[in-house]
């Protein structure tokens, strides 16, 4: 004891000695310091992937709870639980236990709905995260591997959803199962064999719920967990991308260190994701299985729709024409094969290979750590808009019967709108997105060259009225800005370059002394208050004027 007390820098507090004891055994402080010092860029769009991760944690927790009560068996039982309208009805043990979980387990309904909402949030956040990565070019070398892993995880998330919502064995999920069976049967050559391997015989058999169950609670989650770990390891190894901005280069990361800022925010986000799922699970009813009734192959409800993320497949299935291919020898490729297996397969294959495709097309094989603004890559942005439009048409068509009903439109008309729309609309979206990108690019260049419109109108001695422009940086002899576009947002309002004082803090009443704030602002040497003396406004910057950088509005106050 005496020895440690005299050693320089030796811990004196109890916590400190504990930490030192730990480090003696694990030699962990170096790793801990490196981890805590890791810098994370600070941008809201970087949280999307985290939301997916945290909702997966919520799913693991709530799902484990549900397994305590769920019985994945298709044995026929007569319901005897506390939901009166179904008492005495013959149903599968799976549906029976899902009902008991909802009505006879304290808080069970809450947990079931929380699980379902978290699942919707999980898939949604993955999709939005994917869009962010796509449109900002974050998938470019060296991150192609992580992109592909992400696409695989998206597919697994969809499989998680399908196997999950098929489990309760109610009338809605049974209908979905029947369609899955038909899709498997539609695969050429091996379809019936695959179907019999998965369903253990013809539809419906007695095995499928049990098999989906083990896939849903063990197989796919285990693969997902492994892929998440890989995704994160690669992410940490490669470090984050960042948007271009002051001081940001291809060789650094600017932002907050993990500890404490990023860690606190991330922990806050865990609670927010959990909280939102829980609030939705309690307040907003989802999949009220007791209203659907037990599954019977002879029954169906109108407006039977899958969860949102399968909607696009339902839509493509509705739109695709009845084109069976009758091959010689009494063999058939069913029409159902194309809109389900082929379209979905093609969509996800193209998605997974997109980094390679873009690399081939652009010949850009360099490493990139700075993100791109979507407007700066018009072709990619337009391709994305095209793909999204195609997806959206399919997705809307997945509910075309509901739309037809609610808006009193002919169902056949809705189908034709979808059929034509899925071919015509994507190219239109491409052109529009492309033009918008070019327009935005041009406007950025214009502001860089001519300055920000101040809204201040001046009358020249010859009677001409011009709007005074504020250049963003040094100007040449024609009054044109000399700043080059750097891939970062260009300020387009005076407030963004300190044209106004910052707002005084306080929601109901000011919590700061306005005079004090103004003094601070002057000291900070930014904003109008500080620039009062040396403000330099130039002319509109139109080349026809030949530029008047020297007299361009310097002495005149706008109100003169």
């Amino acid at each position, binding site marked *: 004891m005496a020895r440690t007390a005299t050693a*320089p*820098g030796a811990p004196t507090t109890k916590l400190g000695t504990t930490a030192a004891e730990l480090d003696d055994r694990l030699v962990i402080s170096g790793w801990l*310091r*490196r981890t805590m*010092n*890791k*810098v994370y860029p600070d941008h809201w769009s970087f949280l999307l992937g985290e939301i997916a991760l945290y909702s997966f944690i919520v799913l693991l927790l709530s799902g484990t709870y549900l397994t305590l009560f769920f019985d994945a068996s298709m044995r026929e039982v007569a319901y005897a639980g506390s939901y*009166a*309208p179904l008492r005495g009805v013959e149903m599968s043990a799976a549906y029976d236990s899902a009902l008991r979980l909802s009505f006879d387990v304290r808080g069970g309904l809450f947990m079931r709905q*929380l699980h379902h909402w978290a699942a919707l949030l999980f898939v949604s956040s993955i999709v939005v995260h994917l869009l962010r990565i796509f449109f900002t070019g974050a998938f470019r070398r060296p991150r192609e591997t992580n992109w592909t892993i992400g696409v695989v995880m998206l597919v697994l998330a969809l499989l998680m959803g399908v196997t999950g919502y098929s489990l309760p064995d109610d009338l809605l999920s049974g209908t979905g199962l*029947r*369609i899955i069976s*038909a899709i498997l049967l539609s695969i050429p*050559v091996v379809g*019936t*064999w695959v179907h*019999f*391997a998965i369903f*253990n015989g013809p539809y419906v058999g007695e095995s499928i719920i049990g098999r989906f169950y083990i896939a849903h609670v063990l197989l796919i989650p285990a693969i997902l967990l492994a892929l998440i770990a890989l995704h994160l390891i690669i992410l940490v190894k490669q*470090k984050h991308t960042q948007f271009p901005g002051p001081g940001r280069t291809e*060789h*650094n*990361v*600017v*932002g*907050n*260190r993990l500890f*404490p800022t990023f860690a*606190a925010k991330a*922990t*806050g*986000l865990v*609670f*927010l994701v959990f909280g939102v799922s*829980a*609030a*939705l*699970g*309690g*307040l907003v009813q989802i999949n009220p299985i007791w209203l659907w009734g037990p599954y*019977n*192959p*002879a*029954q*169906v*409800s*109108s*407006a*039977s729709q899958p969860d949102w993320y399968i909607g696009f497949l339902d839509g493509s*299935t*509705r739109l695709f*024409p*009845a084109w*069976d291919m*009758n091959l010689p020898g009494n063999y058939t490729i069913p*029409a*159902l094969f194309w809109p389900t297996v082929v379209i979905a397969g093609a969509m996800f294959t193209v998605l997974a290979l997109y980094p390679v495709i873009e690399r081939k097309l652009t010949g850009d094989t360099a490493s990139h*750590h700075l993100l791109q603004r979507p407007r700066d890559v018009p072709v990619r942005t337009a391709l994305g808009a095209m793909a999204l439009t195609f997806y959206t048409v399919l997705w809307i068509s997945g509910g075309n019967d509901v739309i037809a009903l609610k808006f009193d439109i002919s169902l056949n008309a809705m*189908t034709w709108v979808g059929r034509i729309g899925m071919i015509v609309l994507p190219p239109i979206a491409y052109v529009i997105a492309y033009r918008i990108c070019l327009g935005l690019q041009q406007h950025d260049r214009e502001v860089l060259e001519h300055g920000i419109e101040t809204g201040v109108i001046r009358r020249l001695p010859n009677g001409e009225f011009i709007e005074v422009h504020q250049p963003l940086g040094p100007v040449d002899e024609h009054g044109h800005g000399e700043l080059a576009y750097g891939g970062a947002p260009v300020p387009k309002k005076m407030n963004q370059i300190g044209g106004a004082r910052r707002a005084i803090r306080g929601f109901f009443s000011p*919590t700061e002394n306005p005079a004090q704030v103004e003094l601070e602002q002057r000291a900070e040497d930014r904003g109008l208050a500080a620039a009062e003396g040396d403000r330099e406004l130039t002319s509109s910057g139109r080349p026809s004027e030949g530029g008047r950088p020297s007299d361009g509005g310097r002495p005149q106050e706008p109100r003169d």
Partner: protein
Amino acid sequence: MNTHDTRPGSTGGADTPGPLHGGPDEDYTPEQLAAMSLDELDRLGARYDGVEIMHVEPGPEPGSPLEKRAVRQIGTVFTLAGLCAFASVVIYAGSGWFLPTWQWSVSESGWSAIFTPLVGALFGAAMILVGVGLVLYTKKLLPHETAVQDKHDASAFDRATAGATLVRTAHNSGLARRKLITRSLAFMGGGLGLMLIMPLGGLIKNPNTGDPLGTTPWKQGVRLTRLDGSPIRPGDQEPGSLETVFPAVPGGNRAANAATMLIRLRPEQVAANRPRPGQGNLGYGDYVAYSKICTHAGCPVSLYEQETSRILCPCHQSQFDVTQGAKPVFGPASRPLPQLPITVDASGYFVARSDYLEAVGPTYWNRRRI
């Protein structure tokens, strides 16, 4: 031997770390480190990890109104979170104890109807408030710093040395020369791989044995019954009506591919009826029976609009015309619904004359065409 045995093993000599131990401990003695302030140590460590702290905006001054206000705010948020959490627990545990029961029955609209929303809302609110509190804490009380970390490109040194270790071992193993070993390894790998996936063979079932996809429980003389098992006579149904019928066999009303629609045509439908070629005599009088299983994706086609004689599948909106042999007239279905041959038995009840003439339900690769 005692616990203070300092003998360094069998080789003798002092037990001190070798020269490769090194690292920053060589550059900074414990005394130097002890003399540095927390801030200095923090920055030193950061710099060692390639992180430069560029700019620190300190949090609000201790004791300032801004700080007091932020502390009050954040404290309130955390307190509210605790309140919500406790309230949620009280409602969860107290229902059925000192609060009304949580068990819900259809007629009830009181406490049990709001139990789940209440527990969920409070649970969610508690979690959300904790999250909000943490974010507020970072935003309002912690110093805001901007840090820059260097990104390192792949190191040529690491690549060369790691590569050398690998290549050297490959050379030493002599696998390139010792062909027998590589070939036997490949052979072994193939065998083991097959053996490991071999048990999956248990999943495989021949779909063509007994033609389960092409047959249904219907056969000659099987009565058409309703869901509750009651048989049907001609005259039980109004013209223009549809009834779902099942084969009168055990489990017939749950069989996946047996559900059949028994439709009584109206006189004008009978007049307009154009059955499929060769299937004109499968009905009985003004009665026709078609499979209820959609030929597209297997959903039960359920919606019958007798004015237009159309049957609509609610899953993908295929439409079948009853007066044209249930031919698909719109949507993704490509084949007519198969027709069940029916007649009436000696007791005057509907019976099937045989099974369906073709496979019912979705199309598959080797489905027989008629």
